[in-house]
């Protein structure tokens, strides 16, 4: 699925965020819209927020922001929201109303460096630009989506800007449930957590990874000393303020061996968490570089997974298994498997043809064509 394309910007002084319109609209409706078309001839362009065209308009002059010579536009449907970047000419799809998986991308920065990061951090000063873009996006969301996810990088690095973003969500989209992915480390500072909690968003949860019951093992996986300690302190500060928390565990060679101990640790020390997500490895980003440390065929950790799920479920903790195919999951774990892969990166393999469980199975990440379990097979019911 295409989410980025590029062209050449003309009269694009600053970043623009607008709603895609594939046909011209009445003048009163143009203020929030970006006209997307192959052919501009004869079209009155006044009042649009921006124009995207595949045509070459080098000779022309415009009084509205334009990106021309755009590589592809057929993926841009009416109602989509795009962000146009002034210097680079990038055209990013930042919202699709027909999808359940819309995100607010907060920053590419991160204070951790996980061995299996699927979105490797960039030490780029992007916070102001992205925050402005996200605030504009929030203004344009009508009707409000059911669900939005704030992700990155590490969103808490935005500091005050994150609180501004959440306040905007609270005020403009009060019915939208928001989930934020964060390493939780900055919540160890009580003042920050208090300020965060006092924004008072009505339906907000945070997904925080924990990879071991041991600091040394967790810190190694996330490649940051002190990360475990900060995360644990952060989780407790969040709990003090009654925040909804999900613990996420990416399953690979470094996290599956002590999975049962981690399950017990979560129950005794983080009893307040609302949900635990046990997740399959994404073989993108940093993962290929660290494959020798990380890769284990999911079939080979089913015993540990079963153990951990049994431990958590005995204790009444909520558990889900994400990003696993039903044919490699122990059958007794099927009831915990969710179709969790975002639509834009979700595929099935040839082996899945004729599988009786295909409709119930979440399938693969699109990069799984390169690497997946050796045990994928169609299930005949």
């Amino acid at each position: 699925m295409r989410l980025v394309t590029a062209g050449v910007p003309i009269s694009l002084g600053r970043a623009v965020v607008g709603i895609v319109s594939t046909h011209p609209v009445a003048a009163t409706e143009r203020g929030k819209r970006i006209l997307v078309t192959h052919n501009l001839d004869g079209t009155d362009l006044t009042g649009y927020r921006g124009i995207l065209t595949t045509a070459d308009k080098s000779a022309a002059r415009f009084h509205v922001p334009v990106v021309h010579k755009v590589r592809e536009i057929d993926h841009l449907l009416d109602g989509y929201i795009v962000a146009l970047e002034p210097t680079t000419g990038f055209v990013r799809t930042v919202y699709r109303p027909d999808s359940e998986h819309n995100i607010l991308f907060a920053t590419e920065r991160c204070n951790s460096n996980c061995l299996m990061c699927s979105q490797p951090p960039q030490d780029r000063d992007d916070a102001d630009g992205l925050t402005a873009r996200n605030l504009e996006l929030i203004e344009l969301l009508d009707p409000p989506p059911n669900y939005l996810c704030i992700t990155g990088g590490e969103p808490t690095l935005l500091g005050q800007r994150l609180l501004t973003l959440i306040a905007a969500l609270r005020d403009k989209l009060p019915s939208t449930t928001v989930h934020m992915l964060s390493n939780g480390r900055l919540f160890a500072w009580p003042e920050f957590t208090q300020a965060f909690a006092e924004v008072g968003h009505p339906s907000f949860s945070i997904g925080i990874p924990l990879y071991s019951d041991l600091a040394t093992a967790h810190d190694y996986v996330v490649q940051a000393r002190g990360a475990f300690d900060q995360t644990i302190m952060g989780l407790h500060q969040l709990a003090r303020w009654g925040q909804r928390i999900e613990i996420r565990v990416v399953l690979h060679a470094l996290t599956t061996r002590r999975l049962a101990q981690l399950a017990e640790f979560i129950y005794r020390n983080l009893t307040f968490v609302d949900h635990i997500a046990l997740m399959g490895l994404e073989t993108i980003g940093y993962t290929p570089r660290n494959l020798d440390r990380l890769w284990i065929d999911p079939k080979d950790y089913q015993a540990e997974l079963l153990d951990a799920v049994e431990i958590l479920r005995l204790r009444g903790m909520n558990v889900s298994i994400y990003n696993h195919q039903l044919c490699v999951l122990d059958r007794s774990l099927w009831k915990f498997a969710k179709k969790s892969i975002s639509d834009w990166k979700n595929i099935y393999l040839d082996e899945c043809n004729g599988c009786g469980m295909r409709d119930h199975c979440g399938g693969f990440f699109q990069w799984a064509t390169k690497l997946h379990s050796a045990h994928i097979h169609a299930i005949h019911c």
Partner: protein
Amino acid sequence: MARQFFSPEAYGTKISTYQLLPFRFTRLNGREILVNECGEFLFAPVGTVESLVGRKLDTTSDLYASLRSRQFVTDHSSSAHLDLLATKYRTKHEFLLGSTKLHIFVVTLKCDHSCLYCQVSRQTAEHDEYDMSYRTAEKSVDLMMGSPSEEVTLELQGGESLLAFEKVKFIVGLAKEKAAGLGKNLQIVLTTNLANVNDEILDFLKKESILVSTSLDGPAYIHNANRPRPGNNSHEITVQNIDRCRAVLGQDRVSALMTTTRLSLQHPIEIIDEYVRLGFHSVFLRPISPYGFAIRTAKKIGYETDAFLEFYKKGLAHILELNRNGYFISEVYTKILLTKILTPHGTGYVDLQSPAGAGFNVLIYNYDGDVYVSDESRMLAEMGDTTFRIGNVHRHSRRELFKGEPFVSLMDAYCNQSLPGCSDCAFQSYCGSDPIFNYATQGDPVGHRATSAFCKRNMEVIKHIFGLLAEGDPVTLRILWGWLTNRDQKEMSEELPA
């Protein structure tokens, strides 16, 4: 700027020294059990503690890793997380919040039964000389509402509480009014033998949402032997009226407790089966109380403790079997201990707390206005020993009750953390302190652990439970966790991996 990746050693995996965090330990069935300050335990090979203390334990081993993550030791690789331990410790002691939550009102001593084990009832009372007066009731309700807790449980008891129904109505009305005014959450339980229940009473109980707690000692031949009344038909009437109550109030609004006698001890299976027959889903295998019209000798208590332990083990095995076969029934004492052993929580059960629940968590308001810290201390007073009468509702404020000599004199014995024998016991976090029991059976509130029936009983039951946990039978664990999370085996199989 490309970021670098570092090896495990960069994250402190080489541990040369470590510091101990507080813990206790014991040996059981060829293993060591280590228990940390928050009641989290670990099974370990014999010799673990010795090598741990002697700094000979291999810090690269899985055993060390588990000791580290379960906060038995700490080292420089990361924080000791003392705040985490403190939070867990506080959670275990959440029962302290709000002070006294359970208030037992003895509304009358009149009774129509002559139960073998009862110390207090007056069968021959003519008028209301043994009823709580309206004035005493008012003062008692005031004192009750003076406790800081927002959660208040009022338990009406006797003698036979329904023989003073007018007083019951008065107390309930007054308590509800006061609770509403103070924004407190009031729960009311009526303890009764159900022999005098009628439609008017049932309507009242329903209207006021009162829970009913009755006595069921087992099948008729045990129940009637324990609980004589004119006509010797206590069992028949009890069963009949349990049905009546359930029909009006709801199935789960009536609970039953047994009191155990020598006769009971010989029939654990039959007693439990009677509970099942009557559709109860919880049974409390209670020990024989040492309080009688004559305090039993040490030898008799010893014998009874052994007999009780037999009774308990047989009973528990039968209960587990019933659960295996699809009938949900929990054993209350086991569940209380499991809560302390397996979960982060403490217990609201006043007889197994440290600091002792007596006074802090429960107060008894006698019909005559005298206030006691536990039912047992009231029974001692009935037998002539008023040592633990802490005051009277007509003469003392709540503060004066707790600051008076009788209560203060008990304080030294309230925390098992500082009692000889308990202070280094592995099971300290799971057990409690009962100074009144110690006084009654051994002569002083501190007591002597090596010869204490309270100690022996709890220690043996806890060891028995650890035996089950060590065996680790998956079906048994599902049953026990089902009790803790209130799910029957059908729900468990639906919600757990098949």
